């Protein structure tokens, strides 16, 4: 990955490449030629630009963003941890293989982690155990409905 700090210079073609093809990438035998037609440049230039943007770290890949398979049960958990115990408790929480995502956030509820397990019972068991070991309540905030349709991320260039 590229070193941070070095400014990446983008022209209008780069910006359109980054913005207009985050979804709906052509499923045609020569997708880069189709994009080239839309941008008014050549196929080899499109490929070269994507290679350059990838090398510069602006593009991770041209490919799929997958929907997670919801195997088993999962929830989002939050704890209001005293400042001076956050590292100790974060480490304790990280010790569970059921935890796959653990963040400090700027709120009274300052420790946020995602739990996934084979079933609800195991989730409850882990949360109760964390409460027992830390003496701090764990808020269980399961997802009820998802509203987002991922169409990529429109970039603002100004």
């Amino acid at each position, binding site marked *: 990955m590229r070193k941070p700090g070095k400014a990446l210079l983008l022209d209008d073609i780069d910006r359109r490449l980054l913005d207009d093809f985050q979804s709906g990438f052509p499923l045609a035998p020569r997708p880069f030629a189709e994009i080239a037609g839309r941008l008014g440049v050549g196929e080899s230039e499109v490929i070269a630009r994507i290679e350059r943007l990838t090398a510069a770290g602006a593009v991770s890949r041209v490919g799929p963003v997958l929907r997670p398979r919801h*195997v088993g049960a999962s929830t989002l958990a939050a704890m209001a941890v005293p400042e001076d115990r956050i590292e100790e408790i974060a480490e304790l929480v990280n010790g569970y293989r059921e935890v*796959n995502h653990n963040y400090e956030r700027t709120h009274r509820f300052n420790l946020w982690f995602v739990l996934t397990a084979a079933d609800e019972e195991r989730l409850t068991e882990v949360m109760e155990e964390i409460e027992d070991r830390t003496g701090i309540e764990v808020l269980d905030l399961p997802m009820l409905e998802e509203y987002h349709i991922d169409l990529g991320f429109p970039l603002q260039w100004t």
Partner: protein
Amino acid sequence: MSASVSAAVPDPIDGALIRAVQQGLPLVPRPYAVIAGGLGISETEVMARLARLIARGAIKRFGVVVRHRELGYRASAMVVWALPENRVAEIGRRIARLPFVTLSYRRLPRPPVWPYNLFTMIHGRDRTSVLDQLEQIKERLDLADTGCAVLFSARCFKQRGARYDATWHPEATNPCHPIELSDLKSASGNNLACAF
């Protein structure tokens, strides 16, 4: 929404195809032909199967995957809203369609300590621009009087990568944003943009 996806027995060719394209298409004039060659199927079948996986929702989108941090989008906030139950779905869908919003979920609230039932993720170049986005959202959706809280990510203690064959959570798609602790202090007035 995703129930039909998870319930379906994965087709072994689809599985192999996803593994083949997961790291990105080869940057050559006929990338689907290269993928096809590796799988022993035709180029047409590769495109047809990808179209089907997209239509079914197993692939959320297919295209250029951008690294926002590298392009200067360095801040993100989890913004949570306390909405009346009968308005959550409507507002959740409307927020989800706005630019700079990458997640919108209804979750079980835990009043009185946690009254918030809608969770959204808002991105920006820095914390100020995230808060500007939030102001625009509140104005456009008439949410000025709705209770909300802004939770910036401070330190990331654990993040397991998202892989198709592993159990993971959609929120794991948010990049880890390690931020200096000094930075954290200055932004800890996290309710400043909210009604409570």
